[in-house]
């Protein structure tokens, strides 16, 4: 165990989770209002994303997927440019050509975001090969879900990373859902971490709704990858509390399971701990939530004012 973990300052993590929640609530509200296209949210998974990203170093690279809000915002992405991207505006990180599903921010080390489930797993090995062969210091963190772990390329990726000793921190956000299907219907095992050992890869599973536990586990895992230049698989056990996509009536969801997970909301767990520990008052926590909402409101104003790309952009950036 990392002896420094007790000193983790939870308040910035709490704030970052509030920002993610506010951002995605704005996406949902915007979709209902008809101003924002449908998106895949990560509501309920904020601790899993924020905890891991906050454990990484500035040289580390991140590959993510269509449920990327926590990863991007925890990495310091500008909500103005994220919302502009989601709304297809030229002020977005990808100049409106990505939309919400595959936002990369190279300047922050968030590279090659793919919305093809498992795509990120097939690309992470190459990014890690570059890091290794070019002697760069950063490790590669690859976020994927339990759905991607049912793709064949998951196994190909872990196998090659083990054989070639690539510095990859695989992070499986097991959110229980594979699009519109519960993982119970598609897997015999509960945990993806169990699949690491046959490839010669060490693994751990952590409560993905406890941001401090996630950060601690991710720090330890990242240090193992850094120290060994070998892959490691960390599974964050969490729950996607909204649908696969907005809109989604979630009629397929077991209400009891859903309700049980809502009692373990990651932001509420963090809030209660901060207040219980005397580190925040409930007024402080409410003020932080207000500040996050205001930041997103300002970002929405930026995005709405950002122009759409010119029609010339239809054919730019196709070839280098």
């Amino acid at each position, binding site marked *: 165990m990392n002896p420094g973990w007790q000193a983790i300052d939870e308040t910035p993590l709490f704030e970052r989770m509030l920002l993610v929640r506010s951002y995605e609530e704005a996406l949902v509200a915007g979709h209902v209002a008809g101003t924002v296209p449908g998106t895949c949210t990560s509501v309920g998974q904020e601790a899993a994303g924020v905890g891991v990203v906050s454990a990484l170093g500035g040289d580390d690279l991140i590959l993510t997927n269509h449920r990327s809000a926590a990863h991007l915002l925890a990495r310091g992405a500008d909500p103005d440019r994220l919302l502009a991207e989601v709304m297809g505006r030229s002020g977005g990180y990808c*100049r409106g050509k990505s939309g919400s599903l595959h936002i990369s921010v190279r300047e922050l080390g968030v590279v090659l975001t793919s919305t093809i489930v498992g795509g990120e797993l097939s690309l992470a090995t*190459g990014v890690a090969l570059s890091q290794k062969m070019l002697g760069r210091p950063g490790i590669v963190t690859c976020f994927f879900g339990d759905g991607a772990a049912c793709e064949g*390329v998951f196994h190909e990726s872990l196998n090659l990373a083990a054989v070639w000793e690539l510095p990859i921190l695989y992070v499986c956000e097991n959110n229980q859902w594979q699009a519109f299907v519960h993982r119970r219907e598609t897997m015999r095992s509960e945990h993806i971490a169990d699949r690491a050992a046959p490839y010669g890869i060490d693994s751990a599973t952590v409560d993905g709704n406890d941001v401090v536990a996630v950060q601690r586990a991710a720090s330890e895992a990242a240090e193992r990858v850094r120290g060994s230049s070998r892959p490691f698989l960390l599974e964050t056990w969490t729950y996607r509390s909204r649908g696969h996509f907005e809109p989604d009536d979630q009629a397929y969801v077991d209400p009891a399971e859903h309700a049980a997970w809502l009692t373990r909301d990651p932001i509420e767990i963090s809030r209660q701990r901060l207040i219980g520990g005397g580190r925040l008052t409930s007024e402080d926590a409410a003020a932080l939530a207000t500040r996050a909402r205001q930041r997103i409101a300002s970002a929405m104003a930026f995005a709405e004012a950002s122009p759409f790309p010119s029609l010339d952009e239809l054919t730019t950036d196709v070839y280098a």
Partner: protein
Amino acid sequence: MPVITPFEAIGTALTEEMRRDPRVLIFGEGVATKRHDLLDEFGPARVRNTPLAEGIIAGTAVGAAATGLRPVIDLLFAPFLCYAMDQLVNSAGKLRFISGGQFAFPMVTLAMTGGGWGVGAQHNHNNEAWFVHSPGLKVVMPSSAADFKSLLKAAIRDNNPVLFFIDLGLLYQAGEVPEGEHLLPLGKASVLRTGSDVTLVSYGKTVHACLAAAQQLAEAAISAEVIDLRSLKPLDEEAIMASVHKTGRLVVAHEAAKMAGVGAEIAAQVAERAFADLRAPIIRLGGPDAPAAASHPLEQAYAPSAEAICAAARSICA
């Protein structure tokens, strides 16, 4: 000038480019085993065997290309590209555009195809048109030992993902190959024989059938121009238009299936842009809508023969 096979020309191109640029590396199925000269010179970090897993081979190349390396991957046979379609089409071909130009993918994918080895339809399938239809990719298919070297060197230096198709029937047909720095620009066709009555357009092995047909046509006093496309994307449209402008007649021939093949695109472009130049209908010759057979006579009958090309040309030169 040395006389070497395309297999050797590929090795020469790789050696020269790996000496020139330390970012170039090659990995794939049996690469370090088959090309032990590369392994000896450049070592196991830059010449790597891989598992038989085309998806992760291609994905690894895409990820490496975007972050500073210049990989060449060998996926062996073109039908195996089906396992790598996501990585080649959805990642290599699209992530530059999707990201607003944040990434480039300087990588080359080698794949063999075509009749000649009797390997049957799961090793022989000329699927190059699939990649021509996919944005963000370049497609090359050489016809001579010299072009294998020059086009591969150019493909390795290109900053885009290049599909490099190797016609099986040509792999051990030796030819003169210049030493040293000879590069051919991607997207430039070659006029292998000039003529005034009919234009024969092709690529890969079928170029040689066109040259043989042109010889037969000459004996019948028909002057055929033979164009080797070399690159299917970018497609040298101007070379085709210029030739059709001169001859007024066009035969396009390739081993790949005729339906929605590269020849269909060429015929459509000529009809759109040079209809007034045409003195006869365009003729396309290509494989049937059927998998390639292993049995030698059936395999050979799949691709357009010199006789068929000659007959087609004669039918519109009457």
